[in-house]
């Protein structure tokens, strides 16, 4: 029973960690920052499981300032 509880806790922990509750709000926090883009526009950007904050900011810079 104890083992089952431990496994259940681990399972819930993994679910919580991998679920997304909005940018930067999952149990495993992703890096977030205020970004000033190369053309002066600003935004708040977070990394996620697939892309780092810099990768995402870089892509946005291409779209906003390109």
């Amino acid at each position: 029973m104890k083992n089952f509880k431990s496994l259940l806790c681990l399972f819930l922990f993994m679910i919580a960690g991998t679920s997304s509750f909005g940018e930067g709000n999952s149990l495993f926090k992703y890096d977030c920052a205020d970004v000033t883009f190369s053309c002066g526009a600003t935004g708040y950007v977070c990394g996620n499981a697939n892309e780092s904050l810099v990768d995402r900011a870089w892509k946005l810079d291409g779209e906003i300032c390109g």
Partner: protein
Amino acid sequence: MKIAITLLATCLTVSVMLAQPGSQALKCTYQLTFQPDSTDKNNQQNELMLLYISKNESQFVSKNFMLRDSLKKVVKRNYDPSSGHLDLSQVSIPQTRFRFIIYKSQEIIDVFYDKLGWFKYSEDPEELCWEISNEIKSINGLSCQKAMVSHGGRNYVAWFTNEIPVPDGPYIFSGLPGLIVEITDTQNHYNFSLIQVQNHNGIFPFEEPKDYLTISKAKFLSFMADYRKNPIKHLKQYASVSLSPAERKRIKDRESRRNNPIELKAN
């Protein structure tokens, strides 16, 4: 102007001689001149594009796209996550309208497009039905032969040279008996002109992206059309960006003026 053209021609000829057409790995630099707004002939823009050819495969990218990638690595190294602020306004980031990597082989053309995430669509090189003419002209000292093809809703006139017997060229164009030296659509909205040929080490500058969405070309073009119509919606879907009303207007206006993509339809 004449001196500049003579210098360019000499440079190209010398580079081609140095490149030894028989060797396998070539780096070809093309100048792309394009008209982003079909209604504004006075707005012509330029970008340098690079074609890396190795054995029977090639990779085609914008030079600025490549420079951006190198610069991003430097910014990543120097970024301090504890600062809570990333200032890209201090970095001189080269901008490009062509954020794609095109891999070509005799069997397939794979287009990887970076538009807030990687998309991939493929084309069949055999669908490029070239019509080769007997017309010959000299371009920058190279003897070139004329060929015509229709692609993506445009009709193109190409000039290829048998002096560099490599069946490749800029963008998705390939399959001629020699390297494409110049290719222009008949409306003169997109023109690729070869300005330099060099040897290179045979290693492509980009690895294939790891995470991408495979999509049909038709769906991709429809996504791009929707992006041009609703850029702010797509930006907000990607990240919580707070743009001022003036910035939003600037981006919307800019996208509406980019109404002349190289691919008008999926064929």
